[in-house]
């Protein structure tokens, strides 16, 4: 089965991103294909490399990065949502005159078309949100 996963909330505030992670991991471990994980709304905040969660808590960003490295996952942050919320890669920094970036490795910023495409190409779209 080919899956698309949509994540609507940021890390820690809502459990939605935890659920999305555990679901995606379970699907990959069962041998399913995850076509793309699309981060929308506050979900784009999953893609910052600047978090420092407490030592005794999970590291939500790093978990995504490690999963992406292991399975070559496509982690896409919606560009419009990222701009509103301050998620920046090199290209965005240049286009919008920002003096820093904060995107984590393995994440990329792209348009909403990537969500539509994922929904079309995949057998199932699974949405996690508040």
């Amino acid at each position: 089965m080919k899956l698309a996963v949509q994540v609507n909330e940021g890390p820690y505030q809502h459990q939605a991103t935890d659920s999305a992670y555990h679901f995606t991991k379970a699907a990959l471990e069962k041998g399913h294909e995850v076509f793309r994980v699309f981060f929308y709304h506050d979900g784009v905040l999953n893609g910052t490399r600047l978090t420092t969660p407490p030592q005794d808590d999970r590291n939500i960003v790093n978990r995504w990065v490690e999963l992406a490295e292991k399975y070559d996952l496509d982690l896409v942050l919606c560009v419009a949502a990222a701009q509103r919320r301050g998620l920046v890669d090199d290209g965005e920094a240049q286009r919008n005159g920002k003096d820093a970036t904060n995107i984590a490795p393995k994440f990329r910023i792209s348009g909403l078309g990537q969500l539509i495409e994922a929904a079309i190409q995949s057998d199932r779209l699974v949405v996690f949100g508040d």
Partner: protein
Amino acid sequence: MSDIKKFMYLNRRAPYGTIYAWESLEVVLIGAAFDQQVSLMFMDDGVFQLVKGSDTSQSDMKNFLPTYRTLGDYGVRHLYVDKASLEARGLTTDDLIEVAWEDFETEEEVDNIVEAVDADQVVQLMAESEVVFSF
């Protein structure tokens, strides 16, 4: 497998209090480029998204009500509104905006694609959809 799928966008939240209504609309607009069969379903507080007369001039927020009116031009075929949700909120379809639709090739026109539906129809319409986007 055909590349034309039946998309349903499910809107259950009021506008302005949260951004979901607006960002959901942005997906619909972008999605128009992909030529799917698209309908929107409004229920619970989502029905408030279509109420006429929104004025954000004192809110410093963007008024996106006019954008709904253009949805017919973006390939959206149906805006369904759950009747029971309207009734609980003291609303009728007269309180809602109208959205026109025209097929530019066949010149087929529909004056208003906003339609109130009862629970059985909602069940049926959802079941027929192939992808549901929830916000």
